[in-house]
C-alpha cells in the first residue's frame, strides 16, 4: 500500500505523475489504447455535433435509409432520414454522462458501505455484507428492467437505477481491503489518539484504499454504459426522441436486411467506449498494484 500518502499526503500528491505507478500505466500499451479510445470518443461526442451540417432531430424523408457516405451523411441516415452521425454523437453525450454519473453514485454508496462494514465489522458489518449478497443474487438486468418499468424513465432516473444495481462490487472490494487494514498500526494509533470513528474511516482508511476504488470505479463506468445500452435497447431506458446508443439500436433489428448500418454503427460506438474503460481499468489495476513493483 501507499504508505507515503499517509505520512505526507501533500508531497506524494504533488508528483503523482512522476510516480512509478504513473510510469507503469503509460507504458501499458492496452491502457493507452483505452485512453486514446475514450478521449477520441469524448471529442467526437462533445465537439463533433458542432462540426456536422445536420441537427440530430432534423427529419429529411427524401433521404431515408441513405447508406453511410451518402453526401454529407458520413454514417448514413435512419428510417426517418435523420443523420446517424449527429444522433450518434448526441447519444454518446447521454450514454457517457449516464455512465459517468452512475459510476459516481455507485462508487460513493459502495465506498461508504464497504468502509463502514469493513471497519465496524461485527453484527453491522455482517448485515451490510449480506445485503450486498442479496442484491448480487438478482440478475442485474432483471432488477434494472423491473425498476425501469416502474419509474419515470428520465435520464436522471435511469442513472439512479443503474447505480442502485451496480454499487455492490465496489462495496465488496472496499470491505475486503478495509478489513485487512483495520488492525494496522496507523489505525490503532489513530484510535488511541481518540479520533472519532468517522475520521478514522474516512480520513485514515479511505486514502489507503483509494487505488482499488479507482480501478473499480473505472470498470463501473464500462458496466454502466453497457447496462444503459441493454435497457435502452429493450425499450425501457432513455426514451426517444432523446437518442442514446442503446435506443438507436432499438429499431435496428427490423431493418437488418435493408439498412444494416443502423445496427452496426451504434454497436461499434458502445463496444469502443466499454472496451476503452475496461482497458484503462485493467491498466490502472496493474499500475497501482504494489506487487508489480518488482518489475
Amino acid at each position, binding site marked *: 500500500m501507499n504508505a507515503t500518502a499517509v505520512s505526507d499526503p501533500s508531497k506524494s500528491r504533488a508528483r503523482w505523475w512522476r510516480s512509478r505507478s504513473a510510469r507503469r500505466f503509460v507504458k501499458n500499451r492496452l491502457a493507452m489504447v483505452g485512453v486514446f479510445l475514450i478521449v477520441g470518443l469524448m471529442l467526437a461526442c462533445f465537439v463533433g455535433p458542432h462540426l456536422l451540417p445536420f441537427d440530430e432531430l432534423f427529419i429529411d424523408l427524401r433521404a431515408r435509409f441513405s447508406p453511410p457516405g451518402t453526401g454529407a451523411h458520413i454514417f448514413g441516415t435512419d428510417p426517418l432520414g435523420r443523420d446517424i452521425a449527429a444522433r450518434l454523437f448526441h447519444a454518446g453525450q447521454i450514454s457517457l454522462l449516464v455512465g459517468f454519473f452512475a459510476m459516481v453514485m455507485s462508487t460513493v454508496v459502495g465506498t461508504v458501505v464497504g468502509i463502514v462494514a469493513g471497519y465496524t465489522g461485527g453484527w453491522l458489518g455482517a448485515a451490510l455484507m449480506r445485503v450486498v449478497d442479496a442484491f448480487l443474487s438478482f440478475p442485474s438486468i432483471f432488477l434494472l428492467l423491473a425498476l425501469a418499468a*416502474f419509474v419515470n424513465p428520465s435520464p436522471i432516473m435511469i442513472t439512479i437505477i443503474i447505480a442502485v444495481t451496480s454499487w455492490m462490487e465496489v462495496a465488496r472490494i472496499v470491505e475486503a481491503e478495509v478489513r485487512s487494514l483495520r488492525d494496522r498500526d496507523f489505525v490503532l494509533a489513530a484510535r488511541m489518539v481518540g479520533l472519532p470513528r468517522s475520521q478514522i474511516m474516512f480520513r485514515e482508511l479511505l486514502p489507503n484504499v483509494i487505488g482499488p476504488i479507482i480501478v473499480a470505479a473505472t470498470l463501473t463506468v464500462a458496466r454502466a454504459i453497457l447496462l444503459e445500452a441493454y435497457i435502452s435497447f429493450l425499450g425501457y431506458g432513455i426514451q426517444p426522441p432523446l437518442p442514446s446508443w442503446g435506443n438507436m439500436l432499438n429499431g435496428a433489428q427490423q431493418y437488418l436486411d435493408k439498412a444494416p448500418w443502423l445496427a452496426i454503427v451504434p454497436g461499434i460506438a*458502445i463496444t469502443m467506449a466499454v472496451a476503452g474503460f475496461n482497458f484503462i481499468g485493467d491498466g490502472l489495476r496493474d499500475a497501482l498494484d504494489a506487487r508489480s513493483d518488482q518489475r
Partner: protein
Amino acid sequence: MLRYLLVRLWQSVILLFLVSLIGFMVLNLAPGGPLSQYTLTPGMTKEALDRISEQMGLNRPLPIQYLDWFWNLLQGDWGKSYRDGRPVLEIIRGHLFATLLLMGSSTVLAVMIGTWIGIHSAIRQGSLFDYITTIGAMVTLSIPTFWFGLIAIFVFSVGLGWLPAGNMYTVGDGSVGDYAIHLIMPSVVLALVNVAVWSRYMRSATLDVMSQDFVRTAKAKGLAPRRVLMKHIVGNALVPMITLAGLQLPTLLGGALVTETVFTWPGMGRLFLDSLGYNDYPVVMGLLMFSAVLVLIGNLAADILVALVDPRIRLD
C-alpha cells in the same frame, strides 16, 4: 462437513429473506403499487378502489403485508397473472424448459472452449496465443450481447441464410434436428461472454496450481508432463471453477434474457419482457424472485460440490 452444510444452508435462508425484502420493496414501487391493474381500468371509482384495496388487505401495515406476501410465496402461491389469470408459478414453469435448454447448452460450450483456452494460455504464458486471447477476452466482455446477436443474425440469417433468425422450432416440424438448428446461434451468442470470463479465470487458476510444490514434486519424480498437466494441474484448477460457475449464474440469466429477446426464444427472459409490456406485474415480480431463488440454489449447490471435492474447504 455436516456443520458446514448447516451453516451454509442457514446463510442461504437469511439471503432468501433479504432477497424477498428487496423484491417486496420493488413491488411497492409499481405505479399504484399492487393496485395498478385496477387504477388503470376506465370508470373505476374511488370507493371501488378502496373496497378492492380492503379485500386485498392493502390497508394493513406494510410489515404485515410483507409477511403475508412472503408466506404465500413460500407456500407456492405467487399470485395470478393480470393477463390471463393463470397462477404465476405455472406460467413460469411453462417457460422454464426453453431457458434451461439455452443456458445449459451455452454453458457446456463456454466451459469446454473456455477451459481449453485458459489451460493453453497458462502453459504458454506470455506467448502470442496468450496475448491474443487476453485482449480477445477483454474486447468480448465489452461487446453488448444483443449487438453480437444482431450481427450474427445479419451474417448467418440475412446474409448467408444458413441459420434461422429466431424462434425455438419451425411450426409443423419440431424434430430434434430442427430444435438443434434453432439453438445454435442463441447458445453461441450467449456462450461468448462466458467463454471470455471462464478462460480468464481458468488461466489464473492453472497458473496458481502450476506454481505449487506438489506439481514440482510430480515433475521431479519423473511423471510425463502430459500426465502432470491433465491429472495434477487441470484437476485442481477446475475446483475453484465450480464456485465461479455459481457466481456467474446471475450474469448467465441476465444474458439469457437479452439473447431470448433478440432471437424470439420463448423462455423466461422473453416472458419477462412481454409481461413488462402488458404491465403484468405479478409475473414480473414472480420472475424477479424466481431468478434470484435460482441463483441462491445454484450458489448453494456449487459451494456444497466444492466442499465435497476439496476437503480443505469446510468453513473458515
